């Protein structure tokens, strides 16, 4: 892979560590991104741990409560997130193949899907709120301890996940601007790769949230 120095100057990222003056380290940045993702896994892991322990303690209540969540809404959001993960990958592939316009369109599609996920979530949550089911809600206060725990976990975990969707949209929005400005380019794509990793993590967590809250009854 050792090519001449002209290539190194223009495509610096591919041979970055051979140059003293080029401080870019795409390998290191990807490694750092993964280390961050591991902390995210531990964060959500703790909540999944709570889910496991309380599901064991309040098994009938968990089954009963899960029935109140609409499978088609959770399923729709699963399809939305999986598809957005695909469009995210396609955006990266397009950029690497020097199809910058296609990359931009795929990235916009990804952000639109992320927004779509939040819209579905909005309707889902407002439906629950309208029935008095939210932390501190009057209807929830009348329910059994196990159901309160279920909804507590439901709002905490899908809420934290939703927050990650919002953060993901912001990150992808920045990357979109960087592509338009040429700061993220076919020769410099570590940032979009790392943004993609974050977006796939959001998808990954939903893959577990969906069956645990919507399907197990």
């Amino acid at each position, binding site marked *: 892979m050792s090519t001449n120095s002209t290539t190194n100057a223009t495509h610096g990222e591919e041979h970055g560590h051979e140059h003293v003056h080029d401080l870019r380290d795409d390998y290191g940045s990807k*490694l750092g991104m*993964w280390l961050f993702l591991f902390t995210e896994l531990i964060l959500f892991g703790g909540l999944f741990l709570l889910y*496991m322990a309380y599901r*064991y303690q309040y098994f009938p209540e968990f089954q009963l409560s899960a029935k109140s969540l609409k499978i088609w809404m959770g399923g729709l959001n699963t399809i939305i997130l*999986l598809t957005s*993960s695909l469009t995210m*990958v396609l955006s990266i592939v397009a950029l690497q193949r020097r199809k910058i316009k296609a990359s931009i369109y795929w990235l916009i599609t990804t952000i639109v899907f992320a927004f779509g996920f939040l819209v579905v979530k909005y309707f889902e949550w407002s439906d629950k709120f309208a029935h008095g089911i939210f932390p501190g809600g009057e209807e929830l206060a009348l329910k059994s301890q196990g159901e309160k725990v279920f909804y507590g976990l439901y709002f905490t975990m899908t809420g934290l996940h939703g927050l990650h969707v919002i953060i993901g949209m912001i990150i992808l929005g920045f990357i979109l601007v960087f592509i338009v400005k040429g700061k993220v380019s076919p020769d410099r794509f570590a940032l979009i790769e790392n943004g*993609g990793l974050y977006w796939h993590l959001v998808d990954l967590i939903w893959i*577990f949230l969906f*069956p645990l809250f919507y399907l197990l009854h």
Partner: protein
Amino acid sequence: MSYTDTNEGKIAHAHDPRYGINVMIWITLLSLTVITIAIAGLDLGNYTLLVAMFIAAIKSGFVINYFMHIKFEDLLFKLFIAGVIMVLLVIFVLTALDVFLR
């Protein structure tokens, strides 16, 4: 640096990015989602949770390996992920033993 060679091997792969394989993975993931929902309709008793988590684990494998590109990364990344999965597994198994056998 010691990782120069492997690093360039990784970059070399980036020169041949493909659309098709990712679309195939997406179709697989959607199919597995349909299977999970279909199975949820059946009453598998105590195995419902296990089956659901098993399918979720398979889906995660596809997302991590292909969408997150780990299949094509250095051994270092794979070892890190294996390590984190082991840590999570130990935490879950130990907690489960405590909760279930109390």
